[in-house]
């Protein structure tokens, strides 16, 4: 055994009213609102502030009933969100998302995010599943970077928010069952850090990093779900992982987000073709897919269509479908996408000449931490927001709802956390940090297994056996593979160096990823029907008996599963 660092014996201690974990769109919004509510805030991120996570990667659209393009009301957006969620949405959360969305988009507009405009109004695009044009965006695939930059600027100008990057939170600190802060690892020094807070907000985003092909940052391995589970909070709808149907597959494309093709389709109507160069989407269109004539299928149906074409031997050479813009004049492509066309050319892609290949890619998680309409979990003092929250989108999310949810839930969680901090004294006790301090101290140098390779193994298990199409045997095999990987990495961390140790970081990630992988596979096995993003090859079609949410919780390291009826009734505004 080698002690990784003598420094861990003296943890650095910080105090704040509110601790926000994760500095993507939701976390930054939560920090801003908590500070506005009078709280002192620490905003911690394992990566750089406002650079990691999913928000910065979003090149697409943000849905809200602004009524700028065409008359609209939040209740229409609400109806579309519930329809996409296929009976499982938490109506309080869905209503909050839709009702507060316009206000947040206008706030971002006032903060000069730069929503694309036309004839003096914010331009709103039509997206699948929406009954009218509702999706705002920043032009030339810049929505996510523009949103991140705008929120970073607000953070710079705000007072009372301390931003700390390179700080990985290892566990929520608990005292008498209440959250009293957290314990983390400062990557550059290898030091343990303890943080006392009267309220803690988990804003760590989703779990797409569990899958081989995914569209989010590498650090989206579901940390927040594991933090919440171990703290005693519940998770909901964990079996619903959204696959984005037309993720870029070939040729190799660098310097661009793999989900970049969607806005091209909005604007230019790209065609999905199989190996016979035949359009196949209409073969799969069903009654409940709302059609706009050019871009028909919601994400779950499009993922289904492409996968089935590949299975039938009609896939593209790399194992997906062709996406073709060859019917669009070159000048129109240039007009719609300006500088992006040059970036594509650097990758050897000329859309006027030949199609690209696309395939489904893990994109978003509908499930997540169970909260009420104040974003409070069942653990007093612990809140969650953004993609880390489950319930608002039920079994399938509409395009455009993710960034809206980051803004709306982030703001609400920040306000709730500041409120809690006002009414409660600090519950901090050094004992609350002890389990993590001991865990980090137990880290040792080991030659095998290589934790970076174990992560790749887990991603393969999840992609092959807990992907968009599931079956009893595959899910059982995944659950035992996950248990084996858990045994392989053991209970004590691996370490290789004192400062910026990727081996220790990977081991801590695996501790979270394996718990979260299990929390997806177990309810996926139990749900013997097909609904939204959860499709069972051995249980086709929706079963009314399964119009229920599954709740995952953990006690003494064991996971338990139970069913509840979906929450109805609108949120109190």
């Amino acid at each position, binding site marked *: 055994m080698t002690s990784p660092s003598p420094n861990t014996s003296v943890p650095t201690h910080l105090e704040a009213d509110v601790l926000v974990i994760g500095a993507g769109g939701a976390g930054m919004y939560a920090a801003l609102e908590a500070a506005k509510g009078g709280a002192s805030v620490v905003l911690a991120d394992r990566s750089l502030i406002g650079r990691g996570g999913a928000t910065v990667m979003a090149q697409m659209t943000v849905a809200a009933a602004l009524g700028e393009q065409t008359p609209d009301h939040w209740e229409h957006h609400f109806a579309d969100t519930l329809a996409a969620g296929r009976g499982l949405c938490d109506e309080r959360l869905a209503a909050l998302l839709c009702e507060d969305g316009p206000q947040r988009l206008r706030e971002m507009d006032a903060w000069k995010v730069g929503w694309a405009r036309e004839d003096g109004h914010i331009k709103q695009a039509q997206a699948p599943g929406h009954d009218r044009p509702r999706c705002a965006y920043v032009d030339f695939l810049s929505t996510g970077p523009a949103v991140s930059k705008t929120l970073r600027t607000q953070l710079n100008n705000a007072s009372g928010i301390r931003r700390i990057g390179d700080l990985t939170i290892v566990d929520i600190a608990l005292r008498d069952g209440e959250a009293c802060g957290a314990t983390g690892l*400062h990557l550059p020094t290898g030091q343990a850090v303890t943080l006392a807070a009267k309220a803690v907000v988990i804003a760590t985003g989703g779990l797409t990093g569990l899958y081989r092909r995914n569209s989010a940052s590498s650090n989206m391995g579901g940390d927040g779900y594991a933090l919440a589970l171990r703290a005693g909070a519940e998770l909901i709808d964990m079996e619903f992982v959204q696959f984005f149907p037309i993720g870029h597959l070939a040729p190799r494309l660098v310097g661009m987000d793999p989900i970049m093709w969607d806005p091209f389709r909005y604007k230019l109507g790209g065609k999905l073709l199989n190996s016979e160069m035949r359009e196949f989407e209409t073969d799969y269109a069903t009654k409940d897919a709302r059609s706009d004539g050019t871009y028909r299928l919601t994400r779950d149906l499009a993922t289904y269509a492409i996968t089935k074409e590949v299975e039938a031997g009609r896939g593209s050479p790399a194992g997906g479908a062709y996406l073709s813009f060859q019917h669009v004049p070159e000048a129109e492509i240039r007009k719609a996408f300006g500088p992006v066309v040059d970036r594509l050319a650097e990758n050897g892609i000329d859309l006027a000449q030949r199609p690209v290949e696309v395939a489904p890619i893990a994109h978003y998680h509908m499930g997540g931490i169970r909260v009420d309409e104040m974003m409070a979990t069942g653990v007093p003092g612990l809140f969650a927001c953004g993609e880390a929250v489950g319930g608002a989108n039920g079994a399938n999310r509409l395009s455009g709802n993710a960034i809206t949810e980051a803004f709306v839930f982030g703001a609400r969680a920040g306000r709730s956390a500041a409120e809690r901090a006002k009414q409660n004294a600090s519950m901090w006790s050094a004992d609350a940090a002890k389990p993590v301090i001991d865990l980090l101290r137990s880290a040792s140098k080991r030659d095998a297994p290589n934790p970076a390779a174990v992560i790749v193994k887990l991603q393969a298990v999840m992609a092959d056996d807990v992907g968009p199409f599931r079956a009893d045997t595959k899910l059982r095999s995944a659950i035992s593979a996950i248990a084996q990987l858990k045994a392989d990495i053991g209970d004590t961390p691996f370490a290789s160096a004192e400062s910026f140790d990727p081996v220790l970081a990977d081991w801590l990630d695996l501790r979270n990823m394996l718990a979260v992988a299990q929390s997806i596979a177990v309810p996926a096995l139990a749900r013997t029907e097909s609904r939204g993003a959860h499709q069972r090859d051995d249980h086709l079609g929706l079963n009314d008996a399964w119009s229920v949410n599954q709740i995952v919780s953990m006690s003494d390291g064991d996971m338990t599963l139970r069913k509840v009826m979906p929450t109805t009734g609108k949120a109190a505004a």
Partner: protein
Amino acid sequence: MKATLSIQRGALGEAPHQDMFDIPFEHGQSILDGLRAIRRSMDPSLAFRFSCINANACKECMMLIDGKVDYACTVRLKEGMTTLAPLPKKALIRDLVTEIAPPDERLMLRS
């Protein structure tokens, strides 16, 4: 095709040394693809920053590539030798990792 990456290793205060890794690659793959492959199959302790992998959105993987400051996620692997080093004007942490966060976004334990 085969690329050779010659990488400057070591933490702040240690004498830096070069490690060489031979990696097979396919046309179009990035330096970052190569670095991740090294961690998976040869040396999991190799330290470098990255977050978005592919999109050139997070701007974390900046390093010195053949003597020029660039992003590991957008520069392609090539046949023969490529030399990688940490950013020269930023404080070294370890291997290819430097302190790139703005000063008011750091914990500042070092000073």
